């Protein structure tokens, strides 16, 4: 947005000044703006990078504001959780007579961001039961709850939590519609009054620990969990607000018992109804949803319309693909033969189901890979993909201990307070939803310019995020036209953004009928001094597509050399052995690519095998399976080798958000803004291919709208229907005066088959909104119901800002 002021200077001085000027202007721009809006007041971050940096976080955490965490013995509120996330120790139950914790936990490495997501449904109820003097404190439900809290944990765990706990926590879900306790008052006013105080304190805690200084050391989000549990099927979502502007009360399952109701209320109360408010929802544990989480119909069983799908996709751009209660990527035998999917599988149909049996029949849509395939199917049917899901991992820890994902440490404290770890024997018991079937959960990694709410939230919206199973490998991926040499040079990110799009994006037929290129770079977990990271084994690309018969297919490709490297781990010592990689880089094209078939692709990075947390625990307890008679009954699972046994070893992994190949999207695009010598004499040139699968455009009857933007609008024009001259398969507008939006010429070729093409040039005009630095520029095209977007890093070369 700078004006040039050099016309008067002598050449040498001009060159020197130009160099200084460009340096200054570059710094001024990179000092702080990405392709997203700033919605809050804060100091600009000292550390800002247009090419983005990885930030590690946890978006699913419970503290003593969640009723189930209270029953688990947790006493820390969100402040304790944020302190823990930043690296400070936290106390864990049991608490002694003085109120001091008898155990502590601490992260080996801090997190960059955290969202505390307590269950909104009983915010008020649990406070009332714990606060003498409040109306309802003396109710039988509260008395029973307090009696339960005062009861010492049993020596041996029982399969399910005690009846009193289940009644308190789940009673509301058994009724349809859900209902609060009678002592909550008319319309729940007592409980909602208390809930309001809890919600305010949630916000206060988030504000207290959000670093608004230039250090940008830690980011919090105001958040909560909507805990929908119809008929025992898990439909829970974490609701993450972009900034401090939030509704007065969180919408819980009590207020809105369907996801559609939830989204509508969030839209009314936040997106539309509150200036500056923005929100997204992250579903989790589809593996316990009875196939309902990603069912392709509304809660009232009506089929999805295009509007439904658009709305859903905008409210829920991500899924928590792995966490304490299992990994939901895929399941061997459930529309997949991928054995690597046999990782941390929940073998119960519901979270509190008494039967854990891996041979049961599991609904296909319990698994994200199948949901992604269904999304492609819906796109084929109704024109919009409702299940365009980026991936994050999180813990769902109920100890107010975010990011506690180390396998080595998990046996010491678990995730569910006293339910998980009254003793180590509890940890390896068959209880639900805790015990040996649980795992430490995963992490969410966000590629963002800086560690601030706007930057991280924008990255989540555009799905430039990836999930890990708990370790911290650094993974980057691009799709489009990155050359093979990208894995030989030092500018992986810059080349990736110039030649393609990052993970979570859409890609069109950029190589005509040939496959786009996919470039993936993975660095192993850097580890700590006392715990080095595990070597990487391989990178895979997982593809799902709709074939010519309309059936969903999937395939997994190993894209790095020697994927079966024979690496192993000794389960008695947990010593790893075998070759592996400190880092892996691969460029890959799809050998089965067909330009007409829509598809998704995501990268899965595998570490070498390591011990599962339960193996560490069994070894620490000195369990020797060679003398079965010496193994205490409580630790029988340590020596279980039956078909229902949990594995002794795991391969930690990372999953990038998918790329979606859309046959009707933009193909190759070449564009530039040429800055004129004087202000207001800039020219935009654009040539864009559009996929053959795009509908037959009809500018006679439809407006043609084009926008070019970065953090603000660079150029926008709408050509009214009927303006362009129609000749055969071509539409054209030529006007040297540029009276229509500065357009000098625009041509739209719409052949009956093959790629379509749009060419456009403006008269000299003011395009100074295009910042004179390398940065992201987005092109948006709408013709009737057709809409396509192209986003790349444009590069400043001399007086021209252009695509690479």
């Amino acid at each position, binding site marked *: 947005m700078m004006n040039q002021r050099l016309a008067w200077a002598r050449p040498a001085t001009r060159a020197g000044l130009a160099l200084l000027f460009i340096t200054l202007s570059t710094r001024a721009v990179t000092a702080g703006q990405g392709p997203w809006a700033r919605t809050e007041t*804060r*100091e600009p971050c*000292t*550390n*800002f*990078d247009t*090419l983005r*940096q*990885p930030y*590690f976080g946890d978006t699913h955490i419970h503290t003593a504001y969640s009723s189930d965490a209270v029953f688990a013995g947790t006493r820390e509120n969100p402040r304790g959780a944020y302190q823990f996330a930043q690296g400070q120790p936290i106390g864990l139950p*049991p608490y*002694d*007579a*003085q109120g001091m914790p*008898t155990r502590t936990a601490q992260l080996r*490495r*801090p997190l*960059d961001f955290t969202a505390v997501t307590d269950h909104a449904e009983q915010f008020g109820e649990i406070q009332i039961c714990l*606060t*003498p*003097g*409040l109306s309802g*404190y*003396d109710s039988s439900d509260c008395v029973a709850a307090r009696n339960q809290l005062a009861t*010492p944990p049993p020596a041996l765990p029982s399969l399910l939590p005690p009846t009193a706990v289940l009644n308190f926590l789940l009673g509301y879900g058994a009724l349809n519609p859900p209902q609060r306790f009678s002592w909550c008052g008319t319309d729940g006013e007592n409980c909602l009054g208390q809930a309001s105080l809890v919600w305010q304190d949630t916000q*206060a805690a988030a*504000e*207290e*620990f959000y670093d*608004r*200084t*230039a*250090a940008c*050391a830690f980011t919090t989000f105001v958040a909560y969990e909507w805990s929908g549990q119809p008929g025992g099927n898990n439909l829970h979502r974490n609701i993450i607000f972009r900034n401090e502007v939030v509704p007065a009360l969180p919408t819980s399952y009590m207020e809105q018992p369907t996801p559609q109701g939830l989204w509508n209320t969030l839209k009314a109360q936040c997106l539309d109804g509150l200036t500056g408010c923005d929100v997204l929802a992250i579903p989790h544990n589809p593996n316990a949803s009875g196939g309902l989480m990603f069912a392709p119909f509304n809660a009232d069983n009506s089929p999805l319309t295009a509007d439904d799908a658009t709305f859903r996709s905008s409210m829920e751009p991500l899924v928590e693909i792995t966490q304490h209660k299992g990994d939901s990527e895929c399941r061997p035998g459930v529309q997949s033969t991928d054995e690597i999917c046999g990782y941390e599988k929940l073998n119960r149909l519901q979270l509190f189901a008494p039967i854990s049996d891996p041979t049961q029949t599991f609904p296909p849509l319990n698994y994200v890979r199948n949901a992604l395939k269904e999304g492609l199917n819906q796109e084929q049917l109704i024109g919009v993909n409702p299940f365009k899901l980026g991936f994050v991992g999180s813990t769902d820890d109920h100890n107010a201990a975010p990011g506690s994902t180390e396998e080595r440490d998990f046996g010491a404290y678990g995730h569910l307070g006293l339910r998980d770890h*009254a003793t180590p024997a509890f940890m390896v018991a068959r209880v639900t939803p805790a015990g040996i079937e649980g795992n430490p959960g995963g992490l969410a990694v966000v590629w963002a310019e800086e560690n601030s709410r706007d930057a991280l939230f924008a990255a989540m919206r555009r799905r430039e995020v990836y999930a890990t199973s708990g370790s911290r490998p*650094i*993974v*980057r991926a691009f799709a489009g036209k990155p050359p093979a040499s990208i*894995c*030989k*040079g*030092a*500018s*992986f*990110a*810059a080349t990736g953004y110039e030649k393609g799009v990052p993970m979570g994006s859409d890609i069109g037929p950029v190589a005509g009928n040939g496959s786009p290129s996919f470039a993936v*770079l993975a*660095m*192993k977990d*850097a*580890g*700590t*001094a006392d715990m*080095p*990271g595990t070597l990487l084994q391989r990178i895979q690309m997982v593809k799902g597509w709709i074939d010519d018969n309309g059936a969903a297919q999937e395939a997994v490709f190993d894209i790095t050399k020697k994927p079966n490297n024979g690496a192993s781990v000794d389960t008695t010592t947990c010593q790893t052995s075998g070759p592996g*990689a*400190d*880092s*892996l*880089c691969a460029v890959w094209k799809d050998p089965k690519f067909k330009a007409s078939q829509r598809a998704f692709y995501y990268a899965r990075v595998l570490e070498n095998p390591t011990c599962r947390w339960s193996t560490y625990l069994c070894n620490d307890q000195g369990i020797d399976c060679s003398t079965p008679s010496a193994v205490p009954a409580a630790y029988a699972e340590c020596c279980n080798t039956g078909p229902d046994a949990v594995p002794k070893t795991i391969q930690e992994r990372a999953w990038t958000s998918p790329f979606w190949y859309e046959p009707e999207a933009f193909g190759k695009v070449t564009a530039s803004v040429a800055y004129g010598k004087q202000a207001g004499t800039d020219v935009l040139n654009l040539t864009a291919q559009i996929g053959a699968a795009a509908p037959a455009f009809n500018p006679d009857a439809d407006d043609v709208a084009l926008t070019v933007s970065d953090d603000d609008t660079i150029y926008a024009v709408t050509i009214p229907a009927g303006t362009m001259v129609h000749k055969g398969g071509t539409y054209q507008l030529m006007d040297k005066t540029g009276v229509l939006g500065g357009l000098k010429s625009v041509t739209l070729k719409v052949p009956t088959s093959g790629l379509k093409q749009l060419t456009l040039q403006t008269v000299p005009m003011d395009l100074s909104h295009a910042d004179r630095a390398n940065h992201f520029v987005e092109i948006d095209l709408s013709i009737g119901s057709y809409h396509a977007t192209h986003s790349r890093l444009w590069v400043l070369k001399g007086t021209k800002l252009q695509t690479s």
Partner: protein
Amino acid sequence: MRCLRSPLVHFLTGGAVLFVLVHVARPAAVGGVRTAPNPVVITADDVARMRTAYTRETGLQPTAADEVALIEKAVEEELLYREAVARGLDRNDRSIRNWLIEQMRGLADDPTGDDDALYAQARALELDRKDLVVRRILMQKMRLLASRAGEQDAGDDELRAFYAAHQADYQQPERVSLWHVFLGSQAHGTGARREAVQLVAELRSRPLDPGVAARRGDPFPVPAHLTSQSRPQLEKIFGATLADELMRGAARAWIGPLMSPYGEHLVWIETHDPGAIPPFETVRGRVLEAWRDERRAQRLAQLLRELASRAVLRIDSVAWRERRQA
């Protein structure tokens, strides 16, 4: 004037003075009747009960220190309870009232009795003095009252002073901006170090723009030019050992080869920025919360000290006596 010399006047005045001295000037207990403070008594049976409850809750045997802590907690609770009663916090408390009515209803086996009558009966029987629930309610109220009574938000001046006294808590981290050239173990295998040594010698021998030099490296997930990175950020990317060396490294010279988990790095440090103290306005929210927390804890501690100083304790516990003597 003459009336002042009247013996009756002297008598009455003297009596009035005595009355004032006895009843007003001396600190009086509840109801204006002066009594010696009741001792807080914890018998050996009480101690045994506390120990058993502790074991039941935690599964551990209490040590001597634990026993002292249990007793201290019991004493503190008793003092808070007594203070709550002295201040009349039990009057007009709806929760306590309802609770006592229910207790009395059960005791008198009188399901339809009048609420007021039952409440009066309960008080007459001093049910509130012995009831655990009532005690807990009153202790809680007393704690809240002590920590929050008269609470006012601090003005800017006070907060700035607090901030000045606690600056270490808010100090920004030290930062470094650098260029790095990466020779990865994957691409160079065992020769990575040798090639790195060669390269750094070459870079030192002829001046080369760090940006140009960095292009010679292997792919790395973040760019070759990193600005204003704090130590935790560097540790995240490069591991702890290399992060330490970068924080210490000399600026404007090629350093290395330095080893990370991924291979060898040659580093050109542009600048070291010492950590700054952020301006007060940007952390005002955090400072206010911290100030409030400190004040509340201080007020509560103050009250407990006052109560403890006036209290007479009779504790039947060996551990307690030994600890007190120590």
